[in-house]
């Protein structure tokens, strides 16, 4: 178990280096170097000042040296200052992370609540009417553009029915509200973004669970369970469920980049104050330090999520736990 942990952590070192190399490469090979962009922000910079900037950022040095200097700063989460307002990029990103994590954790929870029973049920009643209808819904969820679904929900619930706010995370008068009003205010702002970001992954997950469950139901130990005289319910809950749900831990870990990627578009549609929207604004403004920071941080978050998922899996699966 301990050895497994160490191995897992060692394995992530080359991945971390790879993440920084790719982020650096994207920036290095893009036309319009950061210094040019900086001059766009401040057109009064003289060419002399530009040279000084080039020196300051070490842009006159060879590539590998530039990378190494940048890498040393990235390790301590120093991405430089935002071109826009001069604040440290890491500070700007970190203050937005809680909102994004809140959105994604709520999505994962909602996804599990819906996808697990649905996937299990449609596996147990394979090819039933329910299973068929579900398959259709899953395909529609999987094929619909998220931002369009967001627009439609905004039209229906925000404009026609007027039940839910359609942008932001809190109302303007949030600070004057009572505790309960605050909670509802927050919740009502979260409902639509959470539903929208759940849709696609719900579809994939319920399919995974269905096929996983079908696979488990064909296993030999299920025959043993039936031959003991267990009822179908007992077989499913006492024997099949745990085996079918174990791989879920890994799948949730793997779905993290998709969720984070999705938050760029969802947060933009709902004007939700998270990391995704910050990233989109930074990309539009070519705010290099913030962009690079978000690239590295979201890849790190993904890696962290995968490591946590692997460890949880090892804890949950006795075949790995006791080896």
């Amino acid at each position, binding site marked *: 178990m301990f050895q497994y942990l160490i191995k897992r952590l060692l394995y992530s070192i080359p991945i971390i280096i790879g993440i920084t190399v790719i982020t650096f490469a994207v920036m290095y090979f893009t036309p319009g170097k950061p210094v040019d962009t900086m001059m766009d922000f401040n057109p009064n910079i003289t060419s002399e000042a530009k040279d000084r900037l080039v020196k300051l950022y070490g842009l006159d040095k060879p590539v590998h040296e530039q990378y190494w200097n940048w890498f040393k700063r990235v390790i301590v989460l120093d991405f430089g200052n935002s071109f826009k307002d001069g604040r440290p990029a890491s500070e700007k990103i970190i203050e937005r992370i809680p909102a994004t994590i809140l959105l994604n954790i709520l999505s994962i929870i909602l996804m599990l609540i819906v996808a697990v029973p649905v996937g299990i049920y449609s596996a147990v009643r394979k090819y039933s009417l329910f299973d068929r209808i579900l398959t259709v819904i899953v*395909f529609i969820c999987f094929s619909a*553009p998220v*931002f369009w679904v967001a627009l439609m929900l905004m*039209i229906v619930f925000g404009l026609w029915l007027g039940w839910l706010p359609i942008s932001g995370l809190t109302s303007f008068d949030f600070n004057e509200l009572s505790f309960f009003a605050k909670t509802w205010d927050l919740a009502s702002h979260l409902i639509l973004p959470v539903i929208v970001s759940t849709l696609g992954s719900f579809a994939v997950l319920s399919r995974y669970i269905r096929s996983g469950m079908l696979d488990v139901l064909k296993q030999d130990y299920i025959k043993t369970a039936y031959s003991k005289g267990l009822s179908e319910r007992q077989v499913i809950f006492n024997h099949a469920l745990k085996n079918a749900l174990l791989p879920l831990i890994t799948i949730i870990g793997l779905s993290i980049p998709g969720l984070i990627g999705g938050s760029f578009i969802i947060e933009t549609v709902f004007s939700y104050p998270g990391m995704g929207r910050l990233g*989109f604004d930074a990309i539009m403004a070519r705010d290099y330090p913030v962009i690079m920071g*978000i690239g590295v941080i979201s*890849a790190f978050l993904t890696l962290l999520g995968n490591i946590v998922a692997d460890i949880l899996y090892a804890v949950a699966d006795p075949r790995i736990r006791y080896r």
Partner: protein
Amino acid sequence: MKKIFKNKTAFIGIVFIAIVVFIALFAPFIAPYDPASQDLSQRLAAPSKAHILGTDDLGRDVFSRMVYGARVSMAVGFFAAFLTVLIGTILGMVSGYFGGISDSVIMRFTDIMLCFPTFFLILLVIAFFEPNIYNVMIVIGLTSWTGLARIVRAEVLSIREREFVLASKMLAVGKLRLFFVHILPNVISPIIVYAAIAVGGAILTESGLSFLGLGVQPPMSSWGQILMQGKDYIYVAWWLSVFPGILILFTVLSFNLIGEALRDILDPKEI
């Protein structure tokens, strides 16, 4: 191949895509208006006989813009999927067949790519390079191959161990011949399935990029771009948001249904 036409849902998907492809090819003959021609007296007109799906904020005919948008979606979808399949297949095969160092390098690289939110990478590259249809195609293709590479690698690994490959190795068949005659035909099924789904995925990504203003640029039109305008006029012009979205949904759905049907036909073990 006959079987796919017997599968009802897949047949509907094929027919729908055939129609969209037809529209894309013959757009100039089908569109009643020039998609770029503005008529400011007809701004944001609701659907009517003259403009069956209404007009946008510059008085352009939405139906005509959607007809021309089909060209963008189809071109991006097919080309990006082609690129995806090309890269994924080659990397997966090299990794699975040759093993050793090339395998570890490729798989580590795949793991690294899997850590990045793909959509963010695409946004980033598109924003820094010029946003245009070619860059969109290329970037989607360059970032969507990871899943396929893993699938192909796993298939090749299992086939490589099978007897007939062992036998041909003993008979000293050339490596290249072995590759094309014995391995490629056997991994082709998952590749075809992946390709069908990749086309749908690429269309979705393109529409998302255009929706954020980072896809195809005006005066060219794409479905996602109409939706972008729709978002700004969501209070007054619902037709801008509804119709292109439905079209994207049905197109992507068709590709996914075809992919699923192919999976059933080509790989009956899977359920």
